[in-house]
């Protein structure tokens, strides 16, 4: 990827994806809005004049509104799995409160004298509702629909975490890849979409009373029309379904490489790695982009497909630390290097398995490992042997492997030096962690050579070819470039290689005779003929 590419160039190059994501986003927004109106409007009407029911319904919808959106999506997964259904359900629940509340407020706000006149003229209950109350409450109800629409456009970006598409694919891909253009390519259209829809609905809201009757008739058609955007044909169709993380989708050693080097054509959805393995196990997905040391690999009966054309570069983990900190505390580096070469792929997989599948805490897992290795020391036994005092701030990305490593480093520092440790876990993706380090918010975090190479350094194609995806040349290149460009130091590699890998269910892979990515690509080509 060319680092000097402008946003416009990026959007132009990815215009196909951008259009598809925008269409999906509009579709998600309007399907959930439509359902919310179909349920919220009658419910809002029903609770007018029913004080007890109104308190209950509004209270319940209000509680739904306070659930953080990411948590609500999390609740949806065990109930409804992944894909559009849980995403639309979550968005629907968010849209519900403003619609119910504004319908209720709007109808209750109709002048009682006018309502009495309507009844006294001989209108039936439904005539009073449709000819008078709804028309007069229209601006208030529309304001509720506007609020719901804007909420849905915003929360809709999170749909990308559970394979429901939308502009969140670019946003989360961009954050993971340290690619500002990609973030903006998702964020700007999402913001514009919110502003545009809000503006259009504000025009509808301010319609004269005469035009409202027409608007009421046309609106459902327009909403249905937009909802159908989601049904537009997407990508390839194939017998197997792939689920890739947003990060994987945008990497040259990810989806892009699979397409260009292997010619892989597979129907793909974007999904968060938190739910990806489970979805593969549940046969919702057939091929996923996992990490070769992930503990769930064993737990869910998945098998790694051999990367026979070598598109995934090595991802050896090592601590990255600010040079100033190393210089200030000369005793620190030897302590951190105690882990070097100690953890190979299978040990790391086993450690991850304990945390991800057996639900042990990262702290306990780290302590057990260090104890077994004879490295664990109680804090304060050898206080300040080198007379050093201060605090080291450790950062980590948000997945278990990083939590485990960070805990090990914290225990080593406390056990072998007089330094204090402050941990800042959960710094999102690569971009956030790396920026925190560069901007002196943390002092070190564990990084992977491949990630540093492709997501941070963006080397020229010649450099990439020269390095050839080999372990030592990549490590040396990354180390020298980090010192030169950022004043950051790489310590010795810990030992394991947490590379990207394509995975399938073991049973399915055996049944189809797929062992390598080339096998997969060949199978899919045969399938489509």
């Amino acid at each position, binding site marked *: 990827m060319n680092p000097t590419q402008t946003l416009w160039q990026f959007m132009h190059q990815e215009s196909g994806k951008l259009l598809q994501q925008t269409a999906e986003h509009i579709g998600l927004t309007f399907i959930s809005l439509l359902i919310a109106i179909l349920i919220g409007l009658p419910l809002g009407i029903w609770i007018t004049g029913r004080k007890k029911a109104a308190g209950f319904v509004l209270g319940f919808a209000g509680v739904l509104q306070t659930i953080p959106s990411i948590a609500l999506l999390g609740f949806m997964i065990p109930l409804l799995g992944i894909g559009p259904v849980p995403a639309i359900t979550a968005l629907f629940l968010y849209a519900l409160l403003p619609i119910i509340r504004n319908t209720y407020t709007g109808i209750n706000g109709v002048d009682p004298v006018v309502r*009495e006149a309507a009844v006294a003229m*001989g209108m039936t209950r439904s005539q009073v509702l449709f000819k008078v109350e709804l028309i007069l409450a229209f601006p208030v109800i529309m304001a509720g629909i506007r609020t719901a629409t804007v909420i849905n456009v915003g929360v809709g970006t999170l749909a990308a975490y559970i394979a429901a598409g939308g502009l969140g694919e670019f946003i989360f891909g961009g954050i993971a890849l340290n690619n500002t253009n990609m973030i903006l390519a998702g964020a700007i259209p999402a913001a514009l979409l919110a502003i545009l829809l809000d503006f259009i609905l504000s025009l509808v809201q301010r319609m004269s009373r005469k035009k409202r009757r027409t608007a009421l008739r046309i609106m459902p058609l327009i909403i249905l029309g937009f909802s159908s955007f989601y049904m537009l044909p997407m990508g390839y169709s194939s017998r197997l379904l792939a689920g890739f993380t947003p990060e994987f989708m945008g990497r040259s050693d990810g989806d892009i490489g699979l397409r260009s080097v292997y010619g892989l054509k597979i129907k793909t959805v974007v999904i968060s790695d938190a739910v990806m393995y489970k979805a593969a196990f549940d046969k919702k997905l057939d091929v996923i982009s996992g990490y070769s040391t992930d503990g769930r690999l064993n737990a869910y009966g998945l098998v790694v497909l051999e990367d026979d054309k070598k598109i995934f570069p090595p991802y050896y983990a090592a601590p990255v630390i600010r040079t100033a900190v190393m210089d200030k505390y000369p005793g620190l580096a030897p302590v951190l290097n105690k882990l070097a070469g100690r953890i190979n792929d299978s040990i790391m997989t086993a450690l991850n398995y304990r945390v991800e599948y057996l639900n042990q805490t990262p702290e306990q897992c780290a302590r057990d490992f260090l104890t077994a290795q004879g490295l664990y020391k109680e804090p304060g036994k050898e206080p300040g042997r080198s007379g050093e005092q201060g605090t080291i701030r450790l950062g980590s990305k948000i997945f278990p492997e990083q939590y485990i490593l960070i805990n090990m480093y914290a225990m080593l520092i406390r056990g072998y030096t007089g330094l204090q440790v402050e941990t800042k876990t959960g710094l999102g993706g690569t971009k956030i962690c790396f920026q925190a380090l560069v901007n002196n918010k943390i002092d070190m975090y564990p990084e992977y050579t491949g990630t540093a190479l492709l997501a941070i350094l963006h080397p020229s194609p010649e450099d990439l070819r020269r390095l050839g995806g080999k372990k030592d040349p990549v490590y040396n290149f990354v180390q020298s470039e980090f010192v030169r460009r950022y004043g950051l130091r790489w310590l010795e590699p810990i030992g394991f290689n947490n590379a990207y890998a394509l995975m399938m269910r073991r049973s399915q892979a055996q049944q189809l005779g797929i062992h390598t990515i080339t096998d997969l690509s060949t199978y899919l080509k045969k399938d489509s003929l």
Partner: protein
Amino acid sequence: MIEVKNITKTFGGFRAVDDISFSVEAGENMIFLGKSGCGKTTLLKMINRLIEPDTGEIRIDGTVVNDQDPAVLRRKIGYVLQNTGLFPHYTVAENIAVVPRLLGWDKDKIRERTRTLLEKLHLPPDKYFSSYPHQLSGGQQQRIGLARALAAYPPVLLMDEPFGALDPITRASVKKDFKELDELRTKTIILVTHDVQEAFELGDRICLLDKGKIVQMGKPAELLYHPANAYVTDFFEDQRFQLEVKMMDATDYPALMRAFTHLKNRTNA
């Protein structure tokens, strides 16, 4: 003809209407007169079932109102509200056409009827046909409210303080149009007011109410000259002179002298 038998209405322990019976002849103007809270509006609204009585029975032309579909019943009863209650989202013409439309009249008939009513109420149809209520003055709005009540030729008209919200000058002019309206002569009208002058001006009979009961019912002269009790006398005392003048024929000299004497005595007392 409207017959009301033994009706009672209680609101949370408060007896708004307490066992009232009376009847209104066809074509008669009946006035419900009384102070606020005397039950006159509650009584009126029970006739078109905006309020349901607890006990008792109301018949219009022999049919019990509570046996009818309320919506169908109300389309046959004109209703004028104090604060007009015009539909703000309807034009003047659409407001007047509400009941004819509910009754399914054809478009030309509705249009013609609307124009006729606007002309009778001195609102040039071409000017006001497509206006909205908020573009009209209070007096004009009240005229439209009256036109809306009359549009479908209801034999019965209920009016709840129809001039109550207007300033004195507008009130006089609207009342004048109201009295000149030929259509009203044949209708059975019940009008609620707290204004004694208005009651005497418009009523064939007056029903004076207090605390949910009828104190006295009869022709204006009966109430004035043959009060049933002290409450009735006191009720008219402040305006007795104007009322007596209003009652009399200007050539009836002795009656005029009696009125002046009464006024003088009162002033001296």
